[in-house]
Protein backbone atom coordinates (compact mmCIF):
# COMPACT_ATOMS: atom_id res chain seq x y z
CA UNK A 1 0.00 0.00 0.00
CA UNK A 2 2.62 2.40 1.16
CA UNK A 3 5.03 1.35 -1.49
CA UNK A 4 2.37 1.73 -4.12
CA UNK A 5 1.52 5.18 -2.88
CA UNK A 6 5.15 6.13 -2.89
CA UNK A 7 5.62 4.91 -6.38
CA UNK A 8 2.62 6.95 -7.45
CA UNK A 9 4.10 10.01 -5.83
CA UNK A 10 7.42 9.47 -7.55
CA UNK A 11 5.66 9.03 -10.86
CA UNK A 12 3.61 12.18 -10.41
CA UNK A 13 6.66 14.10 -9.37
CA UNK A 14 8.72 12.95 -12.31
CA UNK A 15 5.86 13.67 -14.70
CA UNK A 16 5.61 17.15 -13.29
CA UNK A 17 9.32 17.50 -13.67
CA UNK A 18 8.92 16.63 -17.34
CA UNK A 19 5.93 18.89 -18.00
CA UNK A 20 7.16 21.98 -16.28
CA UNK A 21 10.32 22.36 -18.37
CA UNK A 22 8.26 21.56 -21.48
CA UNK A 23 5.81 24.32 -20.61
CA UNK A 24 8.65 26.64 -19.77
CA UNK A 25 10.22 25.89 -23.14
CA UNK A 26 6.90 26.57 -24.85
CA UNK A 27 6.41 29.92 -23.22
CA UNK A 28 10.05 30.80 -23.85
CA UNK A 29 9.44 30.14 -27.55
CA UNK A 30 6.21 32.15 -27.42
CA UNK A 31 8.09 35.07 -25.90
CA UNK A 32 10.93 34.79 -28.40
CA UNK A 33 8.43 34.74 -31.28
CA UNK A 34 6.94 38.03 -30.13
CA UNK A 35 10.41 39.49 -29.71
CA UNK A 36 11.46 38.47 -33.23
CA UNK A 37 8.26 39.71 -34.82
CA UNK A 38 8.59 43.08 -33.09
CA UNK A 39 12.17 43.41 -34.29
CA UNK A 40 11.79 42.12 -37.85
CA UNK A 41 8.83 44.10 -39.15
CA UNK A 42 9.23 47.70 -40.25
CA UNK A 43 7.11 50.69 -41.28
CA UNK A 44 6.04 50.70 -44.89
CA UNK A 45 3.62 53.26 -46.25
CA UNK A 46 0.58 53.46 -44.01
CA UNK A 47 1.40 50.10 -42.39
CA UNK A 48 3.43 51.07 -39.34
CA UNK A 49 5.57 48.64 -37.37
CA UNK A 50 3.34 48.92 -34.30
CA UNK A 51 0.64 46.97 -36.14
CA UNK A 52 2.34 43.78 -34.95
CA UNK A 53 1.49 44.66 -31.35
CA UNK A 54 -1.39 42.39 -30.43
CA UNK A 55 -4.48 43.32 -28.48
CA UNK A 56 -5.70 40.82 -25.84
CA UNK A 57 -7.98 39.04 -28.30
CA UNK A 58 -5.33 38.65 -31.01
CA UNK A 59 -2.80 37.37 -28.47
CA UNK A 60 -5.25 34.83 -27.05
CA UNK A 61 -6.34 33.54 -30.46
CA UNK A 62 -2.69 33.22 -31.56
CA UNK A 63 -1.72 31.39 -28.40
CA UNK A 64 -4.57 28.87 -28.62
CA UNK A 65 -4.50 28.65 -32.43
CA UNK A 66 -8.07 30.00 -32.52
CA UNK A 67 -9.41 27.32 -30.15
CA UNK A 68 -10.00 29.21 -26.90
CA UNK A 69 -10.98 27.43 -23.69
CA UNK A 70 -14.74 27.94 -23.13
CA UNK A 71 -14.39 30.35 -20.21
CA UNK A 72 -11.89 32.57 -21.98
CA UNK A 73 -13.97 32.47 -25.15
CA UNK A 74 -17.08 33.69 -23.33
CA UNK A 75 -15.10 36.44 -21.62
CA UNK A 76 -13.55 37.60 -24.90
CA UNK A 77 -16.87 37.57 -26.72
CA UNK A 78 -18.42 39.64 -23.96
CA UNK A 79 -15.63 42.19 -24.18
CA UNK A 80 -15.98 42.39 -27.94
CA UNK A 81 -19.75 42.76 -27.78
CA UNK A 82 -19.29 45.77 -25.53
CA UNK A 83 -17.37 47.53 -28.32
CA UNK A 84 -20.28 47.53 -30.78
CA UNK A 85 -21.63 51.03 -31.34
CA UNK A 86 -24.95 51.08 -33.17
CA UNK A 87 -25.75 54.21 -35.20
CA UNK A 88 -27.42 56.91 -33.10
CA UNK A 89 -30.33 57.21 -35.56
CA UNK A 90 -31.06 53.47 -35.24
CA UNK A 91 -31.24 53.34 -39.08
CA UNK A 92 -29.32 50.58 -40.85
CA UNK A 93 -30.39 50.28 -44.47
CA UNK A 94 -27.98 52.18 -46.73
CA UNK A 95 -27.58 51.83 -50.49
CA UNK A 96 -27.16 48.21 -51.61
CA UNK A 97 -25.55 49.34 -54.89
CA UNK A 98 -22.78 51.07 -52.96
CA UNK A 99 -22.65 47.97 -50.76
CA UNK A 100 -22.10 45.70 -53.77
CA UNK A 101 -19.18 47.90 -54.89
CA UNK A 102 -17.70 47.70 -51.41
CA UNK A 103 -18.18 43.94 -51.32
CA UNK A 104 -16.28 43.58 -54.60
CA UNK A 105 -13.30 45.62 -53.43
CA UNK A 106 -10.44 43.85 -51.68
CA UNK A 107 -8.53 47.07 -51.16
CA UNK A 108 -7.69 48.93 -48.02
CA UNK A 109 -5.09 49.39 -45.29
CA UNK A 110 -2.22 47.52 -46.93
CA UNK A 111 1.12 49.28 -47.24
CA UNK A 112 0.41 49.81 -50.93
CA UNK A 113 -2.87 51.61 -50.21
CA UNK A 114 -2.92 55.30 -49.43
CA UNK A 115 -4.39 56.63 -46.20
CA UNK A 116 -7.06 58.55 -48.12
CA UNK A 117 -8.11 55.55 -50.24
CA UNK A 118 -11.35 54.13 -48.88
CA UNK A 119 -11.11 50.51 -47.82
CA UNK A 120 -13.26 47.89 -49.50
CA UNK A 121 -15.36 45.36 -47.67
CA UNK A 122 -13.37 42.37 -48.98
CA UNK A 123 -16.66 40.42 -48.79
CA UNK A 124 -16.36 38.36 -51.98
CA UNK A 125 -12.89 37.27 -50.92
CA UNK A 126 -14.53 34.95 -48.39
CA UNK A 127 -18.28 34.83 -49.06
CA UNK A 128 -20.68 34.00 -51.83
CA UNK A 129 -23.14 36.92 -52.03
CA UNK A 130 -24.97 37.39 -55.33
CA UNK A 131 -25.68 34.52 -57.67
CA UNK A 132 -24.14 36.23 -60.67
CA UNK A 133 -20.66 36.72 -59.17
CA UNK A 134 -18.86 33.41 -59.64
CA UNK A 135 -15.53 34.63 -58.25
CA UNK A 136 -16.31 34.29 -54.56
CA UNK A 137 -14.34 32.80 -51.70
CA UNK A 138 -15.41 30.03 -49.36
CA UNK A 139 -13.49 30.91 -46.20
CA UNK A 140 -16.74 32.25 -44.76
CA UNK A 141 -20.27 30.87 -45.17
CA UNK A 142 -22.38 31.63 -48.25
CA UNK A 143 -24.50 34.74 -47.75
CA UNK A 144 -26.63 34.17 -50.83
CA UNK A 145 -30.28 34.97 -49.99
CA UNK A 146 -29.18 36.28 -46.58
CA UNK A 147 -32.14 38.65 -46.30
CA UNK A 148 -34.58 36.43 -48.14
CA UNK A 149 -34.09 33.81 -45.45
CA UNK A 150 -34.06 36.13 -42.42
CA UNK A 151 -36.31 38.98 -43.49
CA UNK A 152 -35.28 42.53 -42.66
CA UNK A 153 -36.91 43.38 -39.36
CA UNK A 154 -35.19 46.01 -37.23
CA UNK A 155 -33.77 43.24 -35.03
CA UNK A 156 -32.21 41.52 -38.03
CA UNK A 157 -30.85 44.88 -39.20
CA UNK A 158 -29.26 45.59 -35.82
CA UNK A 159 -27.78 42.13 -35.58
CA UNK A 160 -26.35 42.28 -39.11
CA UNK A 161 -24.82 45.69 -38.46
CA UNK A 162 -23.35 44.44 -35.21
CA UNK A 163 -21.92 41.36 -36.86
CA UNK A 164 -20.07 43.36 -39.48
CA UNK A 165 -19.04 45.90 -36.85
CA UNK A 166 -17.40 43.26 -34.68
CA UNK A 167 -17.72 39.62 -35.72
CA UNK A 168 -15.61 38.61 -32.72
CA UNK A 169 -18.55 39.37 -30.43
CA UNK A 170 -20.20 36.26 -31.83
CA UNK A 171 -17.14 34.04 -32.35
CA UNK A 172 -14.05 35.19 -30.50
CA UNK A 173 -11.48 33.87 -32.97
CA UNK A 174 -13.55 34.29 -36.14
CA UNK A 175 -11.54 34.88 -39.32
CA UNK A 176 -13.65 37.93 -40.14
CA UNK A 177 -12.14 41.35 -39.43
CA UNK A 178 -13.81 43.74 -37.00
CA UNK A 179 -14.80 46.27 -39.65
CA UNK A 180 -16.39 48.83 -37.34
CA UNK A 181 -14.31 48.31 -34.22
CA UNK A 182 -10.99 48.58 -36.06
CA UNK A 183 -12.13 51.61 -38.07
CA UNK A 184 -11.87 49.83 -41.42
CA UNK A 185 -15.31 50.93 -42.63
CA UNK A 186 -17.37 54.01 -41.78
CA UNK A 187 -20.88 53.94 -40.37
CA UNK A 188 -22.30 54.84 -43.80
CA UNK A 189 -20.32 52.01 -45.45
CA UNK A 190 -21.50 49.50 -42.84
CA UNK A 191 -25.09 50.56 -43.59
CA UNK A 192 -24.49 50.03 -47.31
CA UNK A 193 -23.34 46.48 -46.55
CA UNK A 194 -26.39 45.86 -44.35
CA UNK A 195 -28.54 46.95 -47.31
CA UNK A 196 -26.63 44.65 -49.64
CA UNK A 197 -27.48 41.74 -47.34
CA UNK A 198 -31.05 42.69 -46.44
CA UNK A 199 -32.61 44.86 -49.16
CA UNK A 200 -35.11 42.78 -51.15
CA UNK A 201 -33.86 44.53 -54.31
CA UNK A 202 -30.23 43.56 -53.65
CA UNK A 203 -28.71 40.85 -55.93
CA UNK A 204 -28.01 38.90 -52.74
CA UNK A 205 -31.75 38.28 -52.36
CA UNK A 206 -32.63 37.70 -56.01
Amino acid sequence: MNAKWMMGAVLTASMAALTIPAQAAESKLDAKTVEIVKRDFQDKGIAKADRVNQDALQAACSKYQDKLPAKLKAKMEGEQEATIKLPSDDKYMGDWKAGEKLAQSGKGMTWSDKAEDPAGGNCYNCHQLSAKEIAFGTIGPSLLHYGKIRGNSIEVQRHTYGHIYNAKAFQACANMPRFGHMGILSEAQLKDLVALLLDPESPVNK
Partner: protein
Amino acid sequence: MNMEINQGRRKALKVGGSAGLLALFGSLGLLQSGLAQAEWNKTAFSAKSMDEALNAMGVIIPENSASIKLTVPEIAENGAVVPVTVESSLANVEQISIFVDKNPNVLAANFSIPSGTEGMVTTRVKMGQTANVIALVKADGKFYRASREVKVTAGGCGG
Protein backbone atom coordinates in the same frame (compact mmCIF):
# COMPACT_ATOMS: atom_id res chain seq x y z
CA MET B 1 6.14 53.95 -96.56
CA ASN B 2 5.59 50.57 -98.13
CA MET B 3 2.76 49.95 -95.74
CA GLU B 4 0.95 53.10 -96.87
CA ILE B 5 1.15 52.09 -100.49
CA ASN B 6 -0.17 48.66 -99.68
CA GLN B 7 -3.05 50.14 -97.76
CA GLY B 8 -4.02 52.10 -100.81
CA ARG B 9 -3.69 49.13 -103.07
CA ARG B 10 -5.77 47.08 -100.72
CA LYS B 11 -8.60 49.58 -100.83
CA ALA B 12 -8.50 49.68 -104.59
CA LEU B 13 -8.60 45.92 -104.78
CA LYS B 14 -11.36 45.40 -102.30
CA VAL B 15 -14.02 45.85 -104.94
CA GLY B 16 -12.18 43.60 -107.33
CA GLY B 17 -13.68 40.29 -106.22
CA SER B 18 -11.73 37.09 -105.97
CA ALA B 19 -8.76 38.27 -107.95
CA GLY B 20 -8.52 41.15 -105.55
CA LEU B 21 -8.76 38.82 -102.58
CA LEU B 22 -5.97 36.71 -103.95
CA ALA B 23 -3.77 39.76 -104.18
CA LEU B 24 -4.78 40.69 -100.66
CA PHE B 25 -3.66 37.42 -99.25
CA GLY B 26 -0.49 37.90 -101.15
CA SER B 27 -0.07 41.14 -99.33
CA LEU B 28 -0.66 39.38 -96.02
CA GLY B 29 2.45 37.42 -96.78
CA LEU B 30 0.71 34.20 -97.58
CA LEU B 31 1.88 33.72 -101.11
CA GLN B 32 5.18 35.48 -101.08
CA SER B 33 6.73 34.71 -97.76
CA GLY B 34 9.82 36.68 -98.61
CA LEU B 35 7.86 39.89 -98.46
CA ALA B 36 6.16 39.14 -95.17
CA GLN B 37 8.14 41.58 -93.06
CA ALA B 38 6.85 44.54 -94.99
CA GLU B 39 3.33 43.22 -94.99
CA TRP B 40 2.20 43.44 -91.37
CA ASN B 41 -1.44 44.32 -91.93
CA LYS B 42 -1.76 47.57 -90.03
CA THR B 43 -5.45 48.06 -90.79
CA ALA B 44 -6.36 44.58 -89.60
CA PHE B 45 -4.21 44.79 -86.46
CA SER B 46 -5.67 48.21 -85.60
CA ALA B 47 -9.28 47.13 -86.18
CA LYS B 48 -11.60 47.87 -83.27
CA SER B 49 -14.33 45.39 -84.19
CA MET B 50 -14.61 41.96 -85.76
CA ASP B 51 -16.33 43.41 -88.83
CA GLU B 52 -13.60 45.94 -89.29
CA ALA B 53 -10.87 43.32 -88.87
CA LEU B 54 -12.44 40.83 -91.26
CA ASN B 55 -13.02 43.62 -93.73
CA ALA B 56 -9.37 44.65 -93.53
CA MET B 57 -8.37 41.06 -94.14
CA GLY B 58 -10.68 40.74 -97.10
CA VAL B 59 -12.77 38.05 -95.48
CA ILE B 60 -16.46 38.18 -96.39
CA ILE B 61 -18.52 35.90 -94.10
CA PRO B 62 -16.69 32.89 -92.74
CA GLU B 63 -18.68 29.73 -92.02
CA ASN B 64 -18.80 28.18 -88.58
CA SER B 65 -17.05 24.88 -88.84
CA ALA B 66 -16.94 21.78 -86.68
CA SER B 67 -13.63 20.87 -88.27
CA ILE B 68 -11.90 23.60 -86.29
CA LYS B 69 -10.97 22.67 -82.76
CA LEU B 70 -10.48 25.78 -80.68
CA THR B 71 -9.07 24.99 -77.26
CA VAL B 72 -9.23 27.73 -74.66
CA PRO B 73 -9.73 27.60 -70.90
CA GLU B 74 -13.33 28.17 -69.80
CA ILE B 75 -12.03 30.36 -67.02
CA ALA B 76 -8.77 32.28 -67.14
CA GLU B 77 -7.29 33.01 -63.74
CA ASN B 78 -5.60 35.96 -65.30
CA GLY B 79 -6.41 37.81 -68.49
CA ALA B 80 -2.73 38.57 -69.12
CA VAL B 81 -2.12 35.03 -70.33
CA VAL B 82 -4.88 33.08 -72.03
CA PRO B 83 -3.66 29.98 -73.87
CA VAL B 84 -5.23 29.38 -77.26
CA THR B 85 -4.84 26.34 -79.49
CA VAL B 86 -6.38 26.24 -82.94
CA GLU B 87 -6.32 22.95 -84.78
CA SER B 88 -8.08 22.06 -87.98
CA SER B 89 -8.76 18.76 -89.64
CA LEU B 90 -9.36 20.56 -92.94
CA ALA B 91 -6.96 19.83 -95.76
CA ASN B 92 -4.57 22.49 -97.02
CA VAL B 93 -4.73 24.94 -94.15
CA GLU B 94 -3.03 28.12 -95.34
CA GLN B 95 -3.78 30.58 -92.61
CA ILE B 96 -4.94 30.70 -88.99
CA SER B 97 -5.96 33.93 -87.26
CA ILE B 98 -6.93 34.52 -83.63
CA PHE B 99 -9.24 37.31 -82.47
CA VAL B 100 -10.54 38.50 -79.11
CA ASP B 101 -13.81 40.26 -79.80
CA LYS B 102 -13.79 42.64 -76.82
CA ASN B 103 -10.15 43.69 -76.90
CA PRO B 104 -9.32 47.25 -78.01
CA ASN B 105 -7.54 45.68 -81.01
CA VAL B 106 -9.49 42.57 -81.92
CA LEU B 107 -6.95 40.79 -84.11
CA ALA B 108 -4.36 39.15 -81.87
CA ALA B 109 -2.28 37.10 -84.25
CA ASN B 110 -2.17 35.78 -87.77
CA PHE B 111 -0.28 32.67 -88.83
CA SER B 112 0.71 31.73 -92.37
CA ILE B 113 0.97 27.98 -92.64
CA PRO B 114 3.37 26.85 -95.36
CA SER B 115 2.67 23.47 -96.94
CA GLY B 116 4.24 20.73 -94.87
CA THR B 117 3.36 22.53 -91.64
CA GLU B 118 0.37 21.13 -89.76
CA GLY B 119 -2.83 23.15 -89.51
CA MET B 120 -2.42 23.86 -85.80
CA VAL B 121 -0.91 26.50 -83.61
CA THR B 122 -0.75 27.29 -79.89
CA THR B 123 -0.08 30.74 -78.52
CA ARG B 124 -1.12 32.98 -75.62
CA VAL B 125 -3.18 36.14 -75.77
CA LYS B 126 -4.22 38.94 -73.44
CA MET B 127 -7.87 39.48 -72.63
CA GLY B 128 -9.09 42.66 -70.97
CA GLN B 129 -12.37 41.08 -69.87
CA THR B 130 -14.64 38.08 -70.40
CA ALA B 131 -14.96 37.79 -74.19
CA ASN B 132 -15.09 35.45 -77.15
CA VAL B 133 -11.94 34.05 -78.65
CA ILE B 134 -12.49 33.54 -82.36
CA ALA B 135 -10.39 31.36 -84.63
CA LEU B 136 -10.42 31.95 -88.36
CA VAL B 137 -8.99 29.25 -90.58
CA LYS B 138 -8.38 29.49 -94.29
CA ALA B 139 -8.18 26.15 -96.04
CA ASP B 140 -8.25 25.52 -99.77
CA GLY B 141 -9.07 29.17 -100.32
CA LYS B 142 -12.14 29.17 -98.07
CA PHE B 143 -12.62 30.72 -94.65
CA TYR B 144 -14.04 28.95 -91.61
CA ARG B 145 -14.49 30.08 -88.04
CA ALA B 146 -14.95 28.81 -84.51
CA SER B 147 -15.67 30.79 -81.38
CA ARG B 148 -15.56 30.16 -77.63
CA GLU B 149 -16.15 32.31 -74.58
CA VAL B 150 -13.44 32.69 -71.95
CA LYS B 151 -14.40 34.04 -68.54
CA VAL B 152 -11.74 36.30 -67.12
CA THR B 153 -11.96 36.38 -63.33
CA ALA B 154 -10.71 38.63 -60.57
CA GLY B 155 -7.63 36.91 -59.25
CA GLY B 156 -6.29 36.71 -55.72
CA CYS B 157 -7.52 38.84 -52.87
CA GLY B 158 -8.02 41.88 -55.08
CA GLY B 159 -5.75 43.95 -52.83
